[in-house]
């Protein structure tokens, strides 16, 4: 009935077919409920403080930081696709560019929102900018993520301004055109910022001398995890974009992304994943044989606490690393959509597992003689906030897909005019 009384057809791009408004609202409703519960849980944490969580001084990083690290890695497809299209001029990736920007925007805005809760005192969030510890990797992360979210907002604006009704306003249309022409500058800035914050997120674990499970040596001031985080993020980003696009195609029953583009993204992802697996393997061998023993720890003792046994290490490197890298790059498997998407899912699972291990296992395993193995179960407020961010992402993406030209160009060949 809703669609009979209210129609949003004037906001849907010309020539595009979308489901009825009532069906769309029916799809959004459960996600909206999850989001509202998440906002309530976040409100409790902000009002009453972090005693609403099950984190403590020992287990200071939990589900939220895992979520942050995970979605920031998966959102790397935004900067990396922008880098490939605008800096390396790989124009064949253009059809996926808008969706990459929206996915990146969702990931980073979700991460910043959850960080605001995690900081515990959001009214003092500005302290990090006014009193930064310039020796801290986290300071670099804070600055870079804040700036990069701003960049993503600016990259999202041209997509927003091309909505059917907004583009009728000449001033907005011309501004969109001019801003779009400057997007390569933003893509360059975004690449620089992403390079450093992805790296610093890994680096902040690598410099933890007091946590020998995570501590790594490296190059100059950067531990090896700095480089591994960058590599794993740019390897999983394109895979995540493939999964998002394939999910949209499955839900809508339409094809937006040519199979060749899927293969291209898969190949890029696979090659980078292979490089990451090589780097990770070398890093693990160095850590097992030199770094950890030099700190006075037999490395296998880290894996004596269930469920963090050696199978996790095997899964991280082989099952979620080597296997998808092979499937994504091998011509025969990459030619089959099922294999390609399964491999992309494995690659994404691999980067999530890596972030989980570095966040949770690092803190769980005992370090000092009187330490015990710690177990941490997130409170419902943490889980609800986590789910709220996921629901937020689904809602924003659904709205963007419905009203914005995410998979342009679908009508004209060139959606942006050339010349000044």
């Amino acid at each position, binding site marked *: 009935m809703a669609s009979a009384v209210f129609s949003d*057809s*004037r906001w849907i791009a*010309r*020539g595009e077919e979308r489901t009825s408004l009532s069906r769309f609202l029916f799809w959004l409703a459960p996600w909206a409920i999850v989001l509202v519960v998440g906002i309530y849980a976040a409100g409790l944490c902000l009002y009453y403080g972090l005693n609403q969580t099950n984190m403590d001084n020992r287990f200071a990083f939990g589900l939220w930081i895992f979520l942050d690290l995970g979605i920031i890695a998966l959102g790397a497809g935004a900067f990396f696709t922008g880098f490939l299209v605008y800096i390396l001029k790989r124009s064949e990736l253009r059809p996926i560019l808008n969706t990459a920007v929206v996915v990146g925007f969702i990931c980073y805005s979700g991460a910043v929102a959850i960080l605001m809760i995690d900081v515990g005192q959001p009214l003092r969030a500005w302290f990090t900018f*006014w*009193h*930064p510890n*310039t*020796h801290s990797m986290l*300071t*670099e992360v804070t*600055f870079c993520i804040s*700036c990069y979210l*701003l*960049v993503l907002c*600016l990259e999202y604006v041209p997509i927003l301004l091309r909505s059917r009704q907004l*583009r*009728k306003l*000449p*001033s907005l*249309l*011309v*501004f969109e*055109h*001019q*801003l779009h*022409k*400057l997007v390569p*500058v*933003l893509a360059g*800035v975004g690449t*620089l*910022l992403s390079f450093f914050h992805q790296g610093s997120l890994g680096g902040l674990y690598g410099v933890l001398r007091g946590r020998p499970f995570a501590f790594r040596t490296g190059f100059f001031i950067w531990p090896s995890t700095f480089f591994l985080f960058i590599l794993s993020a740019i390897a999983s980003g394109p895979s995540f974009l493939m999964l998002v696009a394939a999910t949209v195609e499955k839900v809508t029953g339409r094809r937006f992304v040519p199979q060749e583009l899927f293969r291209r993204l898969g190949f890029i992802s696979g090659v980078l994943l292979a490089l990451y697996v090589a780097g990770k393997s070398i890093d693990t061998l160095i850590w097992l044989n030199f770094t950890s023993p030099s700190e006075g720890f037999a490395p296998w003792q880290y894996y004596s606490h269930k469920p963090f046994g050696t199978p996790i290490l095997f899964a991280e490197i082989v099952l979620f690393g080597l296997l998808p890298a092979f499937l994504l790059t091998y011509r025969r498997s990459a030619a089959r959509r099922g294999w390609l998407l399964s491999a992309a899912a494995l690659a994404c699972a691999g980067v999530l597992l890596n972030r989980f291990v570095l966040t949770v296992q690092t803190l769980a395993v005992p370090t000092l003689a009187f330490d015990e193995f710690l177990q941490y179960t997130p409170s419902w407020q943490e889980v609800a906030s986590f789910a709220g961010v996921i629901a937020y992402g689904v809602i924003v993406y659904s709205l963007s897909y419905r009203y914005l030209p995410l998979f342009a160009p679908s*009508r*004209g*060949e*060139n*959606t*942006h*005019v050339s*010349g*000044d």
Partner: protein
Amino acid sequence: MFPGIDGFHWTIGHVVFLSLFFAVVATIFATVVSAAWRTARDFRTNQAVELCWKSSFAELPESDRRCRHELAGRVISRTCDNAFDCRRCSKYSQFAVLPARAPVHSLGLNYSGDRFYHRGHTWVKPAEDGTFTVGLDELADRLVGNPDSIEMPEVGTELEVNQTAWCMKKNGNEIQVRAPIDGAVIGVGGSKQGWYLKIRPRLSSSDPLTLRHLLRGPEVQGWLTREMERLQLQLRSPNTPPALADGGVLMPGLMDALPEADWDTVLADTFLGA
């Protein structure tokens, strides 16, 4: 961190880190300011009309961007990549001399041979005094019927080709009609007069560039045939497969006759709207 905070001392770390940070912030800020400044400049120098038109043109499906020479049957297939501006097309003269081979059908619409047609469904008729009369073509006229209201430009207004010349409202839909030629408005009519504007062209009326971008002769037939096909597809009942034309004639006042159709899309496609 900053001076004024107790215990603050500048170090090389502060300098390097803050320089990098503020360089990035400045770049982002400069990008936005530059885009805003360029936008203002485009409006100041009248480039905005052309940009908006090119942007709208780029949104057209390929089937609506056919070259006039294809419409006339001079070439088999050619997509316009010049925003329908044949004045700047390097290939125009090469194809214009070829014989037109498009079949002629009777579409039941009156498209006079002494007029020139813009793809936004306006016609231009030269007068002996060097001015031009502009009106809505018959397809647009039958579609809209009697508009509920019309907003015309004032006499003396300078119009750019493809700029909105006048606006009409019909059943809650706003219709922006594009100007077919550059020039100054010297007279304003309306639907009852059978013409809408009288324009003194910017270039001389005898200058071949004044009307070169407009369709004429056999090109009009080819264009209209495709426009009718598009209309048939857009106005068919939902879930009805495309059917062969039955030879009927477009009835007048279609917007009143088919109020449930997606007129926002039909009008935007017909009048080359944004």
